[in-house]
């Protein structure tokens, strides 16, 4: 009996290992053959990618990937993942493209291939209006807790620039960090300013204050990513961005989603 249990355990483990090691290279040929472009997003991040009031995926990156799918002549399939599940989703072959507001870091690039950055954002520190934090040094103290998103560049930056503060990481999108801040579980948060600003309308007015002080060089590039094997897809995406920059589609997208708030009426 005991031996049987052991054997079935070994069998189950082997099965798990085999399944996880089976990766599917998301090459262009595969995508066209399948008729589906599978895109992994983290949909808690307006205006990049989010679920709108009609229950549909919307956002700047959704429009971009929709354009890609149209250009390929295939259907767009949007897959939702938590922030820390995005890269594994790509690695395990569940998605062809990772379209999250992700910063290409050297560490991440060990595992996946990033396209050329398509936008630059600014990481920022935010806090409640009732705190008297003004500078980075005010936050970088013992006993002060800082909320970040698990696996985000905000987390890396908080660890780098706020070494004395206690870091708490949350899952489930930038909204969670703001929620934790308002609930008083953290004293400050670190995230991209655009990601913070766009979730603020969901909370009571004046519940969050952005510090003027930027973290790092104040520039955080964002890029799409593909599997190491999908070189042709990687080149194709770079070409796609060059094309839409030339024909004005890119500027229209950025103007609609990033520079104004008109999209809030439609979505």
């Amino acid at each position, binding site marked *: 009996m005991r031996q049987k249990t052991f054997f079935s355990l070994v069998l189950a483990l082997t099965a798990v290992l085999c399944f996880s*090691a089976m990766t599917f290279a998301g090459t262009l040929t595969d995508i066209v053959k399948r008729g589906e472009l599978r895109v992994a997003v983290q949909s808690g991040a307006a205006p990049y990618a989010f679920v709108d009031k009609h229950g549909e995926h919307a956002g700047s990156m959704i429009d971009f990937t929709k354009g890609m799918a149209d250009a390929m002549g295939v259907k767009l399939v949007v897959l939702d993942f938590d922030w820390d599940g995005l890269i594994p989703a790509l690695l395990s072959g569940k998605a062809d493209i990772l379209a999250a507001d992700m910063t290409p870091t050297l560490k991440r690039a060990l*595992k996946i291939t990033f396209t050329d950055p398509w936008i630059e954002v600014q990481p920022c520190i935010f806090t409640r209006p009732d705190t008297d934090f003004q500078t980075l040094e005010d936050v970088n103290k013992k006993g002060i807790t800082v909320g970040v998103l698990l696996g985000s560049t905000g987390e890396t930056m908080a660890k780098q620039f706020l070494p004395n503060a206690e870091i708490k990481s949350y899952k489930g999108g930038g909204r969670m960090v703001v929620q934790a801040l308002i609930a008083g*579980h953290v004293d400050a948060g670190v995230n991209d300013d655009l990601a913070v600003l766009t979730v603020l309308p969901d909370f009571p007015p004046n519940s969050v204050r952005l510090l003027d002080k930027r973290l790092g060089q104040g520039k955080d590039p964002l890029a799409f990513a593909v599997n190491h094997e999908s070189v042709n897809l990687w080149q194709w995406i770079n070409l796609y961005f060059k094309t839409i920059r030339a024909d004005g589609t890119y500027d229209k997208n950025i103007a609609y989603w990033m520079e104004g708030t008109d999209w809030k009426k439609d979505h």
Partner: protein
Amino acid sequence: MLADFNLRIIFEYLPLFLIGLRSTFFISAVSIFLALICGTIACACRISSIKLLKYPAIAYIEVIRSTPLLVQIYFLYFGLPTLGIRVPEIQTGIIALMLNSGAYIAEIIRAGITSVDDGQIEAGVASGLNYFQRMRFIILPQALGATVPPLLGQSIVLVKDSALLSLISVMELTRVGQTMTSERFMPTEAFLTVAFFYMCIYFCLKALADWSQRKLIYREAY
């Protein structure tokens, strides 16, 4: 395929895994202990004939059993601060697990008590035993024997449910796996290790329950 498995990373993260294991173990042990107390009290109120105790107990049990644990955790963590009550993460987790398991344990104990045949109680009454003597000598020894297996099951469920605390940034086993995944992008290695540690806890609990059933319950009952 197996060659892709990165054992070195697991050893590199072993200290963090041990912190997570300790945290899961601590949270689970405290929660199980408190849940047993909570469940016993809730059950005592539930079967009592005093309406002021009975109806609140029914309300508590039904509310907990009809809502997901994750919702309860989020309510305690994010909801209560708006009412002015703010509890740190680990304490929130322990309270949530205690309240959640308490409701199920109350029902398990109640089922154990009601499983004792009416005839036995009548025999007790006929023998002139009072309420507490009947409880002590007739009902509880038999009820306890019947409740130990489901109580063990509930404890194991609680240990596994403690994984949900990773969502409110408690550094327990699952969160260690998530952290490793977010830093090294190796979910297979991370979550297989996490699963292995959960299995270790499970076998410890099982051994404890087997021992207690042999040593304590059977001696009481027979």
